[in-house]
């Protein structure tokens, strides 16, 4: 119906002209006192022929309309159409060029960053090995910082892989403790240096997930807990099967920042005080959670601590 009214609009000049011509003929016949049948007969005849012609024309119009929509332009019928088509083709080509260039640039960038991440891992590995044989306060501090550098490198790789089509997921049942323990180990030096207490008993839960990606999330959350807690403890537990909580007694997050901590680049009050914050860690966590079908949320009170909640329960599969 919409198509038909569009067609009427498109041909409105023709219809008005036809109606005007018919009106002039009819009125002049009537003026010369001809019998009405002499007026009506040709009128009906022309209307019928006109309607048939219009039917054909409308069918053609619909066909052209469909072809244009399928992005295959019909041969131009006049100068104007030709001009339009020329412009469309030019735009199309430019768009394709831009797209190709952007995707080539993106591939180059991803390749470079991947190479960079591997390059930087070699000096990190060398420093780590050599620092380990030193048992001093400053060596320990350097080790802690080195751990942070490693975490940032990991973040770069994660950021790049997140949207890449080459990203590999290996979804199956994994033991959560086997991801929590290595994550804790990564930050053990900072725990010890800051004299933070760790309260963790194996949670004995298996979740359907991808171990590499979920490990990144758990590391990120523990890293934040350690970073923003100067005294007290970090507690890792499940308050019900499948809901992993990582709770610290750190500086907390203010109520106005809390709803936005998972946004890209949002650093909030804590971030503004701590220049190292990029506001990207939790954003990545949220994105990965969305991809894996997990849920991540936070509860916090300024000065009392933060509790990050990871819901790893599988959604019930609906059978159709």
């Amino acid at each position, binding site marked *: 119906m919409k198509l038909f009214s569009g067609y009427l609009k498109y041909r409105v000049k023709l219809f008005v002209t036809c109606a005007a011509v018919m009106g002039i003929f009819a009125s002049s016949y009537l003026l010369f006192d001809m019998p009405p049948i002499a007026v009506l007969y040709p009128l009906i005849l022309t209307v019928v022929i006109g309607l048939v012609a219009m039917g054909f024309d409308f069918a053609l119009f619909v066909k052209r309309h469909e072809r244009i929509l399928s992005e295959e332009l019909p041969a131009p019928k006049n100068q104007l159409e030709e001009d339009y088509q020329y412009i469309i083709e030019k735009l199309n080509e430019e768009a394709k060029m831009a797209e190709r260039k952007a995707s080539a640039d993106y591939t180059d960038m991803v390749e470079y960053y991947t190479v960079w*991440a*591997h*390059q930087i*891992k*070699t*000096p*990190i*590995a*060398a*420093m*780590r*090995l*050599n620092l*380990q*044989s030193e*048992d*001093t306060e400053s060596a*320990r501090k350097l080790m802690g910082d080195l751990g942070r550098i*490693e975490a940032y490198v990991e973040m770069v790789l994660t950021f790049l892989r997140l949207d890449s089509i080459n990203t*590999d997921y290996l979804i199956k049942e994994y033991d959560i403790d086997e991801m929590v*323990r290595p994550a*804790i*180990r990564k930050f*053990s*030096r900072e*725990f*010890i*240096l800051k*004299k933070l*207490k*760790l309260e*963790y008993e194996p949670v004995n839960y298996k979740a359907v997930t991808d171990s590499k990606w979920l490990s990144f999330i758990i590391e990120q959350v523990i890293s934040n807990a350690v970073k923003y807690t100067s005294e007290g403890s970090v507690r890792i537990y499940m308050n019900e099967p499948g809901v992993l909580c990582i709770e610290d007694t750190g500086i907390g997050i203010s109520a106005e920042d809390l709803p936005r901590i998972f946004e890209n680049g949002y650093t909030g009050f804590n971030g503004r005080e701590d220049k190292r914050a990029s506001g990207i860690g939790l954003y990545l966590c949220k994105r990965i959670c969305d991809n894996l079908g997990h849920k991540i949320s936070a509860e916090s009170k300024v000065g009392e601590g933060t509790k990050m909640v990871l819901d790893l329960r599988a959604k019930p599969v609906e059978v159709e």
Partner: protein
Amino acid sequence: MYKIYVVEDDKGIADGISQCLAAWEMEVHVVSDFRNVMGEINELEPHLIIMDITLPYMGGYHWCQEIRKNSSVPIIFISSATDNMNIIMAMNMGADDYIPKPFDQSILIAKVQALLRRAYDFNQGSFTLKAKGAVLNTNDNSLTYEGRKIELARNEYKILLVLMQNKNKVVSREKLMEALWETDSFVDENTLTVNVGRLRKTLESAGLKDFIKTKFGVGYILEDEE
């Protein structure tokens, strides 16, 4: 003494590996000519090879294949690539293990020892640490003194291991805690004190009095005049 051959182009890492394996009385040889890896291997006849994947001239995969043509010496790959493809490749080329960079000394030592034990050490004689006539066996976490075998609890063993590895050096409490955390025993300072106390009691009942000395405010030391 086991001979270890290290094929790694980064000097810092090669030095680090040499240092931590030397503590276990292993003879470490670092590659000198990257074009002549096979020649050096044939000459040295190492017990184990540690190899990077990206190397000058020829990559690690190439050398691994070459080595496998006539030798079954254990090979450990170390690489900064962590994707599954590279790990699978390495294993398919005939490697025995794969350690992603960066890694901890303890992981490297554990893997090297495990491979050596499997390949050569059938009667479990090596990988022991000695101090003051006591011998720590890394195979079964026990201590032998004057012919008697003393069973050690997990944390006790780990503490003693670190102290004996750093004989005649003061080992800080932090370092001991770090070592315990590596074995997923997340102790705090108080627990460490309790653990050391318990270890001392175990040692004393075996006749090893004052085996471990306390350095106040710093840590512990195991002195051995030999």
